[in-house]
């Protein structure tokens, strides 16, 4: 069902807007519209230009709540707004202080790491770094030299020079080490080694002992810094965790406050004599609107006006669906296709019944059906997944048809079929021959569904006062007469009864077809619209012919499309037969693991395919005949369910 909507205008003194929202509007579902654009007819409307004071605290609060270890802490909602703001301020101050410290520590850690990188390659040197530097008669130089040049040094120069090179380690490109040279020789040696691209390294001042020791000391310092950083993280998290409940409460409250404040974005203000007034407008369901009127009657500050001539100024109302709880999950399918327009009928119940019914036929198995009911039901009630609810309902029909077909987890010999066995029941038809009974029943059912869809289309068209669609459309009365005529003829033929006379047939088929073909000019004539035809007569005829051809084809293909219902009923039985064969049911000793796995596989796979196929039937075969789905969704400004 579609809920009736009312368009409300609410106004009052400008300063009163917050009270209005928190005391009244937060209780009701209302879809607020942009007042300035909606109320085009009213002059001198101005926008509210106020900065939301809660936005900043809210982002901070959201960030802080993110630090909480237990995100589901029970919020403490007692503090007042001022207390909340103070709390956020306080937390933020502490947080920033710690961040600053963190920054300093990180920097010193980077520095230590850098020093480590300098010292580490000299690991192989087995003496204390700073001692060597302070030798009196010998100079020591730390550095690195490219490997190629190091080789040259070894090969050609080393023997003839008064230098000792101690290698500390090497990587792909460089040899790291120290060379020692007597003071007197130092200048010559320095130039020589410089020529060989020796790159002197300034050792960090905080490196003591042997390089190995220095590296370890540095590593220890880094580890200590890491620990401090960890402690700091802990401290930061403590700030927030010690106030967990209050913060969570603050966040919630701020969200509300901020959201309420943002109502201003949709509101307009207006000069009224000396006072400034606010104006809000939006859609509310009829019941809510009445209650709201009663509640605000005694409030002198608030003026509420229900606007009856809504469609003149404010466009179509949004669509809000309201269905019995059992059918609620099926609203998902409607949303996927598009919500009904405000004067269209809500197809939810129709979908719910047809979907579950067809699913049941295609997936008839008592055992698996019950599994679907239980599994789907549990999921729906625990996790609130709409699809699970749909599956559970569909499972009921599965079980029902399982009884009809006599199938339990694929075993066909436990239950006696109440109706038929889809796989083996055959019917003899004239002209066509022997055929599975379920196929014939499926097509017949399809014909019924198509006729029903056409009737629904006619009802919808009458409601929207669309004469062309009511009478001359392929789904209108003309189409209905034509299609029903064909159905009756086929039924008569198949059951072996005598067909009506040729003239009756000609009238029954011919007249509606001509009406469908010429629907546009006829409608124009009746409504006395003197529009000229846009194209030439020849073009019109060609176009009409092909359109008619397409219409006929679609009657045919849509009808045959329903064969799939029977086909899946048969295929389910066949697939289960294969499972049982694999499990060795024929030889007597059944492998139960294979039966269980096979059932799981068939249940999952067929369930999925059938679910999709039925949805396809709904959308393509039925909706395309009567349903537009051009409505827009009712999006209340404040959703009560959220709380």
């Amino acid at each position, binding site marked *: 069902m579609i809920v009736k909507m009312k368009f409300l205008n609410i106004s009052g003194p400008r300063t009163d807007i917050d009270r209005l929202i928190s005391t009244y509007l937060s209780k009701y579902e209302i879809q607020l519209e942009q007042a300035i654009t909606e109320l085009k007819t009213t002059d001198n409307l101005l926008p509210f230009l106020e900065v939301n004071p809660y936005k900043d605290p809210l982002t901070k609060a959201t960030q802080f709540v993110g630090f909480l270890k237990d995100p589901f802490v029970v919020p403490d909602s007692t503090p007042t707004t001022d207390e909340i703001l103070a709390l956020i301020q306080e937390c933020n101050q502490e947080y920033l202080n710690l961040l600053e410290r963190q920054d300093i520590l990180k920097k010193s850690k980077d520095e230590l790491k850098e020093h480590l990188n300098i010292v580490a390659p000299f690991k192989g040197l087995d003496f204390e770094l700073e001692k060597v530097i302070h030798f009196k008669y010998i100079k020591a130089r730390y550095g690195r030299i*490219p490997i*190629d*040049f190091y*080789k*040259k*040094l070894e*090969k*050609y*120069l080393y023997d*003839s020079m008064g230098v000792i090179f101690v290698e500390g380690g090497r990587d792909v*490109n460089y040899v790291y080490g120290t060379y020692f040279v007597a003071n007197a020789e130092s200048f010559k040696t320095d*130039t*020589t*080694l410089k*020529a*060989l*691209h020796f*790159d002197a390294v300034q050792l960090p001042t905080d490196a003591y002992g042997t390089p190995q020791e220095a590296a370890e000391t540095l590593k220890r310092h880094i580890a200590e810094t890491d620990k401090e950083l960890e402690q700091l993280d802990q401290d930061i998290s403590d700030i927030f965790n010690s106030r967990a409940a209050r913060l969570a409460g603050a966040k919630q409250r701020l969200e509300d406050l901020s959201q309420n404040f943002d109502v201003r974005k949709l509101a307009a203000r207006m000069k009224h004599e000396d006072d400034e007034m606010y104006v809000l407008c939006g859609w509310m369901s009829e019941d809510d609107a009445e209650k709201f009127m009663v509640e605000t009657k005694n409030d002198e500050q608030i003026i509420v006006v229900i606007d009856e001539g809504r469609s003149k100024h404010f466009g179509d109302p949004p669509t809000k669906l309201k269905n019995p709880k059992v059918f609620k999950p099926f609203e998902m399918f409607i949303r996927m296709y598009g919500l009904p327009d405000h004067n269209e009928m809500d197809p939810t119940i129709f979908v719910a019944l047809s979907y579950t019914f067809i699913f049941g036929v295609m997936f008839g198995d008592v055992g698996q059906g019950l599994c679907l009911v239980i599994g789907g039901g549990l999921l729906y009630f625990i996790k609130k997944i709409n699809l699970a609810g749909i599956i559970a309902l569909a499972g009921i029909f599965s079980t029902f048809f399982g009884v009809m077909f006599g199938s339990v987890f694929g075993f066909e010999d436990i239950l006696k079929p109440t109706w038929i066995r889809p796989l083996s029941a055959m019917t003899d038809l004239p002209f066509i021959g022997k055929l599975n009974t379920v196929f014939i029943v499926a097509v017949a059912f399809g014909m019924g569904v198509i006729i029903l869809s056409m009737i629904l289309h006619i009802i919808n068209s009458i409601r929207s006062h669309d004469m062309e669609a009511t009478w001359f459309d392929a789904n209108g009365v003309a189409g209905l007469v034509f299609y029903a005529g064909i159905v009756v003829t086929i039924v008569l033929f198949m059951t072996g009864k005598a067909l009506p006379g040729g003239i009756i047939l000609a009238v029954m088929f011919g007249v509606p077809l001509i009406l469908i073909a010429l629907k546009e000019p006829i409608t124009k004539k009746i409504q006395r619209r003197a529009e000229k035809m846009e194209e030439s007569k020849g073009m019109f005829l060609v176009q009409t012919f092909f359109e008619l051809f397409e219409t006929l084809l679609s009657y045919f293909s849509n009808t045959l499309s329903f064969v799939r219902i029977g086909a899946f009923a048969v295929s389910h039985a066949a697939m289960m037969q294969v499972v049982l064969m694999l499990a060795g049911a024929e030889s007597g000793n059944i492998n139960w693991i294979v039966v269980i796995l096979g059932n799981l596989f068939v249940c999952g796979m067929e369930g999925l395919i059938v679910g999709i196929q039925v949805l396809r039937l709904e959308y393509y075969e039925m909706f395309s005949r009567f349903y537009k789905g051009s409505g827009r969704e009712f999006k209340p400004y404040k959703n009560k369910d959220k709380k």
Partner: protein
Amino acid sequence: MGNILTYSGIVTKVRAMQAKLLTPEDYKNIAALGSVPDIVAYLREKPAYRDILANLDDDMIHRGNIEKLLMQSFYGDYTRLFRFAGMHQKQFLKLYITQHEVQLINYCLRIVFNHYEAPFDLDYKKLFFDSYTQLSIDRLITSKNIEELVDNLQGTEYYAPLKLLRDSNAATLFDYDLALDLYAFSTLWKKRKKVLKNKELEVFTRDCGSQIDLLNMQWIYRAKKYYNMTPPDIYSLLIPINYRIKTDLLRELVECPSLNEFVSIARKTSYAQKYNFDQGYTLERMYTECLYHLHLADRRSNPNSIAVVNTYLFLKELEINQLTTVLECVRYNLTPSETMRYLGGIIK
């Protein structure tokens, strides 16, 4: 003889191309010509240069343009050999062309370092380098400074050694040149074992090793004669490979105090023993002559091997160098006998 099947095709092709090389007679004739256009006219009669020079307009006859065209002739020969070669021979040819890649990068380095106004006159090399080398001239010529140039080499084998140099900052053009040359020779020396086997490896090792030895000697000589470099500096620019000159001998060469002593030590090398070092031979001439004889000997003793291809390419490059020299001599109005002296009497 096992190679005869593999090599019969390419050897025949090389023979045919070899026949088009200029003879000593030709050089004499060219040296005797009076002007550059005359030389062009003469070369137009020669099958090796006929097609390439045919497109040259008379008003475009200029030494620079002619040199570019002569280089095209080498690229043409290389292309022909490459297309004709099998997988294995292609690998060798790729190794061979690295020398030209290094030359190209060095050229770019010079331009970038010296901030020339109208840089990168490389269009004539583009076609060849795009098809047969890992360098992309289109990318290289967009380089504005050394950083970009090194970046543009990304994806080639030269990127790693140059990047190392770039990261160490204070590097000069000389450092880059040197690093590149050292890298090229070291990889050539390393890769030769992968590309070649057995006898071929032996032959190539001799050619390549001798070239490196001779280059090292040449560099030491020049470093001493023109730049007065100290021994450590000289060591740093040597190719770190010894072939026939042992470490001790090389050290003596580097550390000897004067050029005269250098010459007397150089005489001890096996290269000087083979080729007369006294008759006014410069080191440069010794270098060319040694390699020339070495290559010819290789071809003679291994007529069915990669040596034939190697020798041909060597001779072709030599020919182009000689022609360039002759063109310069003629341009500056040297007498034929002087010109022939510059040619070094290698072509007897």
